[in-house]
């Protein structure tokens, strides 16, 4: 019954998750945890190859890349849900 919608439900879940990643506040939340990679002029930051650095990189790149497509996708989904129920 959870798979009744097939890929539709899966798509909704993934859109919601990416939305959640995209709306995290950069300076209030991520800097507190330390998930930003503030690039100093001299390289004294975290090591590039560690898992945490990669994760931070991934999160920030998802945020910068997916902001605008997410606006479009969200609008489409809102219209779909409003009009077609």
């Amino acid at each position, binding site marked *: 019954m959870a798979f009744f919608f097939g*890929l539709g439900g899966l798509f909704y879940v993934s859109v919601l998750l990416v939305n959640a990643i995209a709306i995290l506040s950069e300076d209030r939340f991520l800097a507190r945890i330390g998930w930003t990679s503030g690039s100093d002029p001299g390289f004294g930051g975290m090591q590039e190859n560690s898992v945490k650095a*990669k994760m931070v990189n991934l999160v920030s790149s998802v945020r910068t890349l997916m902001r605008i497509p997410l606006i479009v996708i969200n609008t489409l989904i809102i219209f779909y849900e409003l009009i077609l129920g």
Partner: protein
Amino acid sequence: MQRPAYSNPAPAHSPPLHHPVPQHVSTVPQLRSPPPPSTSSQGYGYPQQGQQQPGGQQQPGYMHQNFGAGFINDPTAQMGFQVGKSAVMAGQEYMEQNFNRYVNVSALKHYFNVSNSYVASKLYIVLFPWWHRPWSRQQRLANNGQDGFYLAPREDINSPDMYIPIMAFVTYIVLSTLLAGVRGAFHPELLGITATTAFAVVIFEILGLKLGTYLLSISSESQLLDLVAYSGYKFVGIIVTLLLSEILNRTAFGTGGGGTGGWVGWTVFLYVFLANAFFLLRSLRYVLLPDTAQGGGAGSAASYTVARSQRNRRTQFLFVYSYVVQLVFMWLLSRQSADPKVAKA
């Protein structure tokens, strides 16, 4: 002798990707529906001949001439025939060029280059991986000596193919729906639901694997289709589970009524899961742990010194992927409830 269309050569090799061009002078004019070269021109030739020459056992040329007098000698029709043929050829080329931009057809062909003995031995390896000794894929240097490439599945038993995963995928969908029908719980959306579930499982696995390789900085040279192929081999085991538990649960062994609920089902499932995990461990070792694999190989594999903790983490990732992830997904795919009618008895 009365059917000149029999002079078609039987295709001894697999036909090329293009629509095969007829090798003989076609007695059928192209202005009608375009026939495939061998059979339908035979069938078309026969009623024509029956009409024109009811008693004709004459030489083959006569029918050509008699029939051709109406069409082939007409220059306008001939020109139209040529134009049509060139238009079809151009259309095919255009489509192939555009198609080749999206799907790498030649890479796909490499994965389907299998033989019967390969399929049989590979199935044997998937189900009983303990008895297989050398697991590394064989390579062969290209002519310029620079880029080696992997041998096709036909020649190398360790090379992953796409034929078995795709067939196992389709068989799994059909079998699972069939078993649902036997239980009386069939409805046509079940096919779609099963298909999308299995698809989503494969996609999730590949995503997880790619995420893992990115996070752990594993520079993997293997293609995406390799990973899809490795992920598709577990459908073989799931099919075996479904079949065996369905058959054996109807005898006196299990709780009766089929399904994968009884202990027969669980035993078979555990065995198949362990076999699949072993197979994946051995196969993915060359993908995920590039320093334990052979260093000299295709191309320029940058061999950097990897810290010990990273190597441990990679091994852990491999283990977690092979066991835990596969357990979850295989359980998900082989879920089937027992037959409600029989189980109550």
